[in-house]
């Protein structure tokens, strides 16, 4: 089966710019959610997605068509997100998101407290572990996809994720949850 994305990539390379628009339309939300989960800031995430797609467009000739376009744009967005997060002066939107809406039940209050503590536990992880946790548990990527995006063998993805989970477990216990 011919990958439809590759057709769109080739059409773009042949000057049909609207085909790149179809790729943007297809993946913009996935990339936005990835960038948002890494940075926890919607404005920054939106900028990252735009920059990532522009970068992909400019480097499209160097895209290896034996690979999936999804993994390529995903890796670009992930790297941009991690770098932007390091440099960012933004504060997290998580607090704003949590403050939005009325709190009506004790259960909701408890959930919000839990979210803040989990976020803190994730933030304490090294970038390489944090990334794996986000990709697996928030983006729900398979091990195959993680291996392709991170460009490391599946066995290594698994062993790193196991270590990441172990550190996360320890951090969560430390926060008293």
């Amino acid at each position, binding site marked *: 089966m011919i990958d439809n994305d590759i057709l769109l990539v080739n059409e773009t390379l042949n000057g049909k*710019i609207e085909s*790149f*628009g179809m790729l*943007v*339309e297809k993946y*913009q*939300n996935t990339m*936005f*959610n990835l960038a*948002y*989960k890494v940075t926890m800031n*919607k*404005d*920054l995430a*939106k*900028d990252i*997605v*735009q*920059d990532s*797609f*522009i*970068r992909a*467009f*400019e480097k499209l000739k160097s895209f290896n068509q034996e690979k999936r376009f999804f993994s390529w744009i995903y890796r670009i967005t992930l790297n941009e997100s991690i*770098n*932007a997060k390091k*440099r*960012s*002066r*933004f504060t997290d939107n*998580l607090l704003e*998101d949590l403050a939005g809406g009325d709190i009506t039940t004790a259960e909701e209050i408890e*959930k919000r407290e*839990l*979210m803040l503590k*989990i*976020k803190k536990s*994730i933030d304490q992880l090294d970038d390489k572990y944090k990334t794996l*946790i986000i990709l697996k*548990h*928030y983006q729900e990527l398979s091990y195959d996809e993680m291996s392709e995006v991170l460009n490391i063998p599946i066995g290594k993805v*698994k062993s790193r*994720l*196991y270590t990441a*989970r*172990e550190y*996360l*477990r320890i951090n*969560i*216990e430390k926060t008293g*949850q």
Partner: protein
Amino acid sequence: MKNQLLIELTNKFIDKELTSDNQLVLNDLLKDPDNKKYFESMVNAIDKLKRCKTPEQYIDIKNQLMSKISQRRKENIMEKILEGLSSVFIGSKYGYAVSFGLGGLVVGLLLFIQPANYHVDDTFLKGVMASPDYDKTYYLEEQGFTGAVNIKYSQDMVLIDVNLKTNENIDCKLNYDKTRFALFGVKPLSNNEGSKFASHGNSVRLSNLDSNQYLVFLRYLQKNDSKVHVSFYSGSMMVANLTIDITK
């Protein structure tokens, strides 16, 4: 040190990858209270993590993004034409004259495709800058450059003064909410050759901030609180950014 087998099987359990044989081995391992404690602690941690998953967010940046890409494409085409012209006419007898003429044509085309630029004249500036006091200042201390973004409110508009101290070619992009502001004008305070700016959609791009200072004027469309997002770039790499709260 924990049993490696226990760690592997616990993770397989979390990933729902346990075979029936694995399950039997795990059950056996969990007879040990320490192992059971570890297993429950890990499963609980991952369960909490999953419960905290934020809902998916949706955006639609396609049109905005595609117009940026189209603009860049046009600029690249013009750059290529210029490169082509210089290579064709180098060494030609009439090279300078022809290059000059065609160069003028290309500059004309560049101006034609360039998004609207809004220049602010000095008379206006003197009036606005009569009082140099700023209402708010955001300081930047990055590797390679320092500086400040100053804010000044007036009756109908807000002035954003971008002033960096750097020897690098840093670009700056300001994004604002088009329903709240309209771009009134931009003024580079020194006339370096590389100093230029362009506006497009809801953003203004200031080029080459080495030793230059830009004043950006946004006119209020609505006097509600809003934010202006400022990003700094070295080439295509974003090196810093900040969000300005417009509170007046």
